């Protein structure tokens, strides 16, 4: 779901970069000492996840795991995803440096939305509600990223609905797999290290 270099027009790039900068500055402000290793681990996971190709369906889709990033990190997913995307751009030539801002927003904003929608549910509830929330978190994060990518391409490809359909359909297997991965991840962390799920705003309150 990385957008390549030279596809987008300048206004889209600038808007993306500005939004990403805003998200990152909030994220960096919220990043306290104990959170740094967690951000690094999830950044590494995001970095590597793009290599896991999902061979179902017609497209060239890979895992994204922005849902896990979002639900565990909240605002901190912005710096985490930025670092991972920058390294993917430099080392793997996925995406590119000029589209870094746009790509960061495309991945991190849905993660943040999922954090606000689901982190309390995942954390507080027990049993099926928590499981469903975890699945929905992984699923929806990828879905929203697809919509955002289509929105960015709207200005160059001029056909939002068809592009969005194409991206969302291609990523349907990825969404389901990510839902399942997020679910297992949350179940695991809840048993083993529940304090990780607290999120940031829980700590303050």
């Amino acid at each position: 779901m990385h957008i390549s270099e030279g596809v987008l027009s300048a206004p889209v790039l600038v808007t993306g970069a500005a939004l990403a900068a805003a998200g990152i500055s909030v994220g960096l402000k919220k990043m306290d000492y104990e959170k740094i290793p967690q951000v690094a681990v999830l950044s590494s996971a995001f970095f590597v996840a793009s290599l896991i190709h999902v061979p179902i369906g017609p497209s060239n889709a890979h895992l994204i795991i922005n849902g896990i990033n979002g639900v565990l990190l909240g605002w901190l997913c912005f710096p985490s995803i930025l670092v991972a995307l920058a390294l993917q751009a430099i080392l793997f030539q996925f995406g590119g440096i000029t589209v870094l801002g746009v790509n960061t927003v495309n991945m991190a904003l849905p993660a943040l939305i999922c954090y606000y929608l689901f982190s309390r549910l995942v954390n507080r509830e027990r049993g099926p509600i928590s499981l469903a929330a975890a699945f929905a978190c992984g699923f929806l994060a990828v879905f929203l990223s697809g919509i955002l990518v289509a929105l960015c391409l709207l200005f160059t490809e001029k056909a939002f609905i068809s592009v969005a359909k194409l991206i969302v359909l291609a990523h349907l297997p990825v969404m389901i797999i990510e839902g399942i991965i997020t679910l297992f991840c949350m179940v695991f962390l809840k048993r083993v290290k529940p304090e990780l799920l607290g999120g940031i705003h829980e700590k303050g309150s």
Partner: protein
Amino acid sequence: MKKGHNKSLIIPFLASVLIISTTLPALAHKVIIFAWVEGDTVFTESKFSGGRRAINAQVLVLDREGKQLLEGRTNDKGEFSFKVPKITDLRVVLTAGTGHKGQWTIPESEIREAGCVLGEKRAVESSQPITVGLSKEEIKDLIEDSLDRKLRPIVRMMTESQSKGPSVNEIVGGIGYILGLMGVAIYFKNKGKKR
């Protein structure tokens, strides 16, 4: 960790093993176009990194100034070929949809070296019976023709190697960078704490 947790650990563990084992044929998200000249024709091959071919993708051919010379679509093997429209640096741009784009530049010198002569037929058809008194140019053309043919597999091999996914070095290197950044961040946070 308590003993009761052991069972619940098995499933995530298996899941992660499964995920790691599927990473090995590292396939991913980049599109590459590779172009080379043979005589007066430019051949291109388009692939996603990992080897899947980019089918029915748009190919634009631009000159040095970025002016569009011609346009076409890749066939079901991801290939597209065209006659050299103009002797200049040719930029071949591939747009594979949903935000994927790749390009390849053929320098003017390469087109000239390939023996491309615009507007006129090549001096000698290689099938023509060779009798007597070949001129220097005719011999040169014949050699170039056969070289093109012989080198084709090598060019193909180069295309294959172009479309390899990221190597283990790059993956481990990337994770190393992230750990390094973590160290830097902790260092600066720590400094602030002491003050």
